[in-house]
């Protein structure tokens, strides 16, 4: 008697689900989540297989990394979102970019007093490569750009301003827009105040603005020991 009661209840529940099913003509969310769980396991296996064959390629070949990143972006996946993600754990892409992020922050900190927190991508690239040493994995400018994009999540004004064919990397919070006319306006008050631009009122003709970040001679100067001590928080 008791069992039949339970049976009847279960049948009623099933009928209700079937009605729901027919009503919506679609699969229930909970079923889909269960399906996703299974697909995830399969995907993980596929990724492991891929990693065992091609992990080296990603490590060594910056062109391949670009391809990989672009494909991920196209399908709506961010392989660098979390260190806990499959991409990071199995392909090792995460550690590569997150470590690069650390190196970028440190270089910017060390040089901030020289350039006010604004540095060309070239100069940043130069210092990062130097810091990594002769035997480290190669790093392309595309790699730097992607690492910096991730750093933006942490506030603190990390950003990139397109200038010429390349970028200026800023590491301090400041409203900066590199439209030419706006640069001049900005230079007049904000940049001067912040130490990002210098006013040369003794220049022949009209007063001139200098942006230390763009001084090419600074490019060749290495990070001094005092500056290096600024790097480690």
């Amino acid at each position: 008697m008791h069992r039949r009661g339970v049976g009847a209840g279960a049948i009623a529940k099933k009928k209700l689900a079937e009605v729901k099913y027919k009503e919506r003509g679609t699969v229930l969310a909970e079923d889909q989540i269960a399906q996703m769980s299974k697909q995830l396991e399969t995907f993980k296996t596929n990724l492991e297989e891929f990693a065992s064959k091609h992990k080296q390629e990603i490590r060594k070949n910056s062109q391949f990394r670009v391809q990989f990143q672009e494909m991920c972006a196209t399908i709506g996946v961010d392989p660098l979102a979390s260190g806990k993600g499959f991409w990071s754990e199995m392909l090792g892409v995460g550690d590569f970019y997150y470590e690069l992020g650390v190196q970028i922050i440190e270089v910017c900190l060390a040089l901030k007093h020289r350039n006010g927190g604004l540095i060309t991508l070239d100069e940043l690239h130069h210092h990062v490569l130097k810091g990594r040493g002769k035997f480290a994995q190669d790093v392309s400018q595309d790699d730097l750009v992607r690492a910096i994009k991730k750093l933006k999540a942490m506030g603190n004004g990390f950003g990139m301003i397109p200038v010429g064919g390349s970028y200026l990397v800023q590491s301090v919070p400041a409203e900066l827009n590199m439209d030419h006319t706006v640069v001049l306006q900005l230079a007049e008050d904000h940049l001067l105040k912040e130490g990002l631009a210098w006013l040369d009122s003794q220049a022949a003709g009209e007063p001139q603005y200098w942006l230390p970040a763009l001084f090419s001679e600074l490019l060749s100067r290495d990070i001094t020991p005092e500056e290096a001590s600024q790097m480690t928080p």
Partner: protein
Amino acid sequence: AKIVLLSTHRLLWRDQKNHECCICIPLSQIIFFEEQAAGIGKSAKIVIHLHPAPENKEPGPYQHSKYSYIELSFKEHGQIEFYRRLTEEMTQKRWENTPVSQPIPTGPKAGRTRAVGIVGIERKLEEKRKETDKNISEAFEDLSKLMEKAKEMVELSKSIANKIKDKQGDITEDETIRFKSYLLSMGIANPVTRETHGSGTQYHIQLAKQLGDMLQAPLEERGGMMALTEVYCLVNRARGMELLSPEDLVNACKMFESLKLPLRLRVFDSGVMVVQLQSHSEEEMIASALDNVSDKGSLTAEEFAKLLGLSVLLAKERLLLAEKMGHLCRDDSVEGLRFYPNLF
């Protein structure tokens, strides 16, 4: 300059300019080899330990040596790749398959034969290069297939997210949490659930607790506050591997309050994000700013930073905060931003 060449049978060492000058050793003579990392004033090396020379060894530059090993010194680069290739050859031991048809030549007549041998090696290098190219195209192919599968996952997750948005009651709390962790694994942004349930997953909760422990001392040392980028560097340098992504850090810090940990993530008006100790209250910071400014008459952010041993960025935020609360006022000129006690 010298070049080291590796074949399936031998290790060769020859002069870059004079190709006639070349010595070699059969790979079968190698017992074991190891890398030595570069250091200050010394190049990276690969040290190769050898069996004692056999009785029938061909004559060479030396008949005997008191050493049982050789060192290859890589002045610029190449050590990583060479080590890898040597490992491959030593694992495969292909010299055991094909009998060495001719003895290693020495003497003037052998000059020509030696050149042939070297051409053979160069051909092998070319084959290897072609194979690498083939590997890359294979890798791209495999990558495309993988992306197809990933795309399916994305579509599925969108469908689920929409359902959640439409009817909240249909899935349990547990299932939502599981779903969020799936999104995290795949690197798919969660568009919908973030609003109702926050961005934290089990992983972020654990992380938040770890950070709570780890950051106590560093925060105390730095006046109770650290920029998030500083925290990022500190934590990742300590970890060494399995690093945190910037988003991982932010999402974990957002959980401090709900987990009742004594830390807080704080975003200043400027957009600067910091982690601060709960115990270091706002009032204390403002009072300290006012005291210091009054004491010195006026202060810039740089001066204040030096006084307190803070970074300029955070010193500035404190001054701005005190100003916001009406305790300080500013003198803003092209010479910089200076703060004075507010006497109004």
